[in-house]
């Protein structure tokens, strides 16, 4: 079975090290370019794919409806619908209108951030061939945060809306530096990428703490932003981030085939006509765009990017093209349900979305891992 010479850290198993993957190539869904997909079991066929897609879409619709309709302030479905209509056609005046209106930015941000984090998680796990990779593994989130803190401390950035213009260059610069650090004579290897990312994250987080702790004014702003939450933010913030999110998502959804090839190991991927380095750079940039958008919009939210790819994989198998699409539907659903739970759990206060995400995601991740074992 083809394997690159990459030595993986103990406990980290390359996807392709699975004997079942050797030589298996999967029939692609109709219309999709046929590429080799390492498969642990029969890959998703067209029928099964349609079922999974419908299920994912239904789950997301349910999450969106729940997010708009359920919260601390109880409203009947009729009231919610009426208020939504009022909001879409103008600006409402009743308290119910205000409540529903306040749930709109939460829901929109939840859809964006959930999709961004889950899809970025798929890419990072694929690129680094490390099932424990989360979107922040290349230092992207630390880079975004460091840039924002720098802006707050030295350039008087304070308005939350401008975050994306700081977060994005910070994230991009970090990923370029990490890639540079990890590149040897034959490009970068997953292990070196992860190490460089971890080192950069550590350095940047130290820098953030140093600035935040010596400048109480920065600390105040940073503290507010550093708790991942969908609430207390505005639709304008979602609009600021939307273009970057859409570009990142489009680029990310196009990486499925290269991720499948990379899963076989770089030499095998190269023999299939893929340029491994180019594929990795494209993937890393797409994930960076997504992470930076999510981080700028809602702050750091953990667990979605780590858990959702595994949860989806336990249903859809290892084909990255399916993983990407289904994660883009499942990620927002998880995040929105977590947010609704946070609204209800600590009445009359709220639990932060970032806290509930892990509480809700952990059992799902454990179930997913058990299912996978049963299948494998």
């Amino acid at each position, binding site marked *: 079975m083809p394997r690159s010479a990459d030595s993986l850290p103990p406990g980290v198993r390359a996807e392709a090290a699975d004997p079942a993957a050797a030589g298996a190539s999967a029939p692609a869904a109709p219309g999709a370019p046929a590429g080799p997909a390492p498969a642990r079991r029969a890959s998703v066929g067209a029928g099964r794919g349609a079922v999974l897609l419908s299920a994912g879409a239904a789950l997301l619709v349910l999450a969106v409806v729940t997010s708009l309709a359920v919260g601390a302030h109880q409203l009947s479905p009729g009231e919610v619908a009426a208020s939504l209509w009022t909001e879409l056609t103008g600006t409402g005046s009743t308290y119910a209108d205000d409540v529903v209106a306040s749930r709109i930015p939460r829901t929109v941000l939840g859809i964006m951030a959930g999709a961004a984090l889950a899809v970025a998680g798929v890419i990072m796990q694929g690129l680094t061939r490390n099932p424990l990779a989360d979107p922040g593994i290349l230092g992207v989130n630390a880079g975004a945060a460091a840039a924002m803190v720098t802006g707050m401390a030295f350039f008087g950035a304070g308005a939350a809306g401008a975050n994306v213009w700081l977060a994005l260059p910070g994230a991009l610069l970090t990923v370029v530096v990490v890639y540079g650090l990890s590149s040897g004579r034959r490009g970068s290897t997953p292990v070196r990428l992860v190490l460089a990312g971890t080192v950069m994250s550590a350095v940047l987080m130290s820098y953030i703490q140093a600035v935040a702790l010596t400048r109480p004014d920065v600390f105040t702003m940073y*503290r507010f932003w550093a708790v991942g939450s969908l609430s*207390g933010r505005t639709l304008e913030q979602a609009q600021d981030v939307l273009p970057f999110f859409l570009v990142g998502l489009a680029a990310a959804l196009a990486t499925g085939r290269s991720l499948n090839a990379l899963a076989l190991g770089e030499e095998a991927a190269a023999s299939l006509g893929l340029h491994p380095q180019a594929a990795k750079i494209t993937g890393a940039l797409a994930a960076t765009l997504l992470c930076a958008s999510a981080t700028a919009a809602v702050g750091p939210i953990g667990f979605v990017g780590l858990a959702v790819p595994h949860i989806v994989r336990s249903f859809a198998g290892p084909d990255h093209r399916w993983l990407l699409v289904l994660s883009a539907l499942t990620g927002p659903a998880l995040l929105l349900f977590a947010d609704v739970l946070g609204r209800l759990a600590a009445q009359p206060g709220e639990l*932060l979305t970032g806290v509930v995400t892990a509480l809700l995601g952990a059992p799902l991740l454990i179930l997913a891992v058990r299912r996978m074992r049963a299948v494998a």
Partner: protein
Amino acid sequence: MKRAPKAALLAVPALLLGLSGCGAEASDSSPVEESGTASAQFPVTVESALGEAVIEKKPERVVTIGWGSADTAVALGTTPVGVEEVTWGNDGHGNYPWVTEAIEERGDDLPATFTGGTDIDIDAIVALEPDLILAPNSGITQEDFDILNDLAPTVAYPEKAWNIDWDDQISVIGKALGEPEAAEEAVAGIKTSLADSAAEHPEFAGKTFAYVWGGGAPGSLVLYNEGDARVDMLTALGMTVAPEVKDIPSSEGSFTSELGLENAEKLNNVDVLFTWYNDEAEQQRTEEQRLFASIPAVERDSVVRNLDRQVGMGSSFLTPLSVPWVLDRFEPMIEEAVAKVG
């Protein structure tokens, strides 16, 4: 995403209260005015939640930690040799302006300052050679207390960190300094000046209020409850906490409760909304949320918005020095908001 650093950052909210020492030299303490009764008071034992302080003779080298204790020590005739550095709302001397002014009026040297907050500079306190450490309104831990109390008798809080009624704080400091009568007079003086102020403003009487902060968790408000000095001061001025606000349970171990903005209608019957902000950015983030803007008091602008940190701190604890200083500045703000209640 990066969970560990986030946790680390969230674990240090008290950082706002103390950073970077400035290593001032300890100044010689001034001769203390021996009141005839003081020496007869000793030895004195003061109980607190963390242990008891046994004070053998009238203290001369007093060190204060936390809020408001330096004020009261000065007011009772003992200028501290060292105070925990004030980093939020401080003047140029790492202290509150009303304390600095009072010490300068007495002609004493200004106290040395040391880093406090969650990481108290114990070495700096040792160097000050204190014979009494006052921390009745502070967040010192049992560990801090055990070290400090070995160094000099230390007065901590009665039950919970940062929780002591303002008059109890003055009484306990009076007891430790051997000036119980002066402390009683100081408490009576504060009550009188607040009552006078209430009498001057009959329009304050019976107005309902809530005191909130929007800079905590996004989409939520922090509410200050009765027993917090901010609230006590306003009730002393004749106002009352809105009943719906009274019913909101306190968060675990604090004098505040949390209110998600989806429950903002609980503030519908608030005549005057009191709020403070760290800065304009925090104000903007809070006020641009539609559910905050929908609070009736906000709609009619009967809001006291405090961005002045010294006024903010001066109205967050009640001491013989802070009350007269802050009333002059705070009253006009309340007058303006009350006038809009209609």
